[in-house]
């Protein structure tokens, strides 16, 4: 199946709108970030979000792509 790539410049909102199942991934990272990412970083890019909250960008992107590629997740 062809999956839209998730790029570091995409905002949290863009990603969730395109791939609803990625919301769960962001929720998973809330604890590490110390904030609700869907509340505080909705309009920030993933790159900005990872930098701002000290998250590992490659791991976050990988988790998002994995979720995006699995519509049943």
């Amino acid at each position, binding site marked *: 199946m062809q999956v839209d790539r998730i790029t570091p*410049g*995409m*905002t*949290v*909102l*863009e990603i*969730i*709108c395109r791939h609803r199942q990625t*919301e769960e991934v962001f929720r998973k990272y809330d604890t590490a970030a110390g904030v*609700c990412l*869907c*509340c*505080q970083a*909705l*309009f*920030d*890019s993933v*790159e*900005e979000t990872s*930098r701002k909250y000290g998250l590992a960008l490659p791991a976050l992107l990988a988790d998002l792509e994995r979720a995006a590629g699995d519509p049943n997740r």
Partner: protein
Amino acid sequence: MAEKQLDCRGLACPHPVVKTKELIDQGGVEQIRVLVDNAAARENVSRFLKRSGYEVRVEEQAGTLAVIGRLGEGAAAARPGTVCAPEARQKVLVLIGTDRLGTGDDVLGQKLLINFIGTLKEMGPELWCLVLVNAGVKLAVAGSEVLANLQELENSGVMVLVCGTCLHHFRLLEQKQVGETTNMLDIVTHLQLADKVIPLT
């Protein structure tokens, strides 16, 4: 003017924004009332509506927050299914991609840009958005001679968007003192929504 209403009480972020986006994407929404019950949803829905060209106000009644968006006159013309008002106020976007104005003498160029930023308020309410990219982001950080001017503009309702990639490039992310850190999609969207773009690059 027909108003659409969404009841997003009890919904956590990002759902109020996602639902608002879905409704707006259908087109023809000139005025919208979104009911929410928490501060984060109020902030995010307001921010989303502003980015989509709506003028936003919030009403509070008995613990319910109503975020009311009315499509700006300038944006109405750009949206399918809407009618352009005859006395539409245009939305002016100023794109600043430099920290000095013109070429020839850099010191003079910096003075001219300071003067330019200080004079922008004379555009009045038509000045809708300032976008700072490349060296223009240096204007938005601590120590900038126009920081107070930009903060004044922002407080008066002018949207100030600051390129996040550029801040990162110049290692200025932590020094930003005004405006909203943004990305290229936002910049392109605002350029499209504006009635007039004044580039200063």
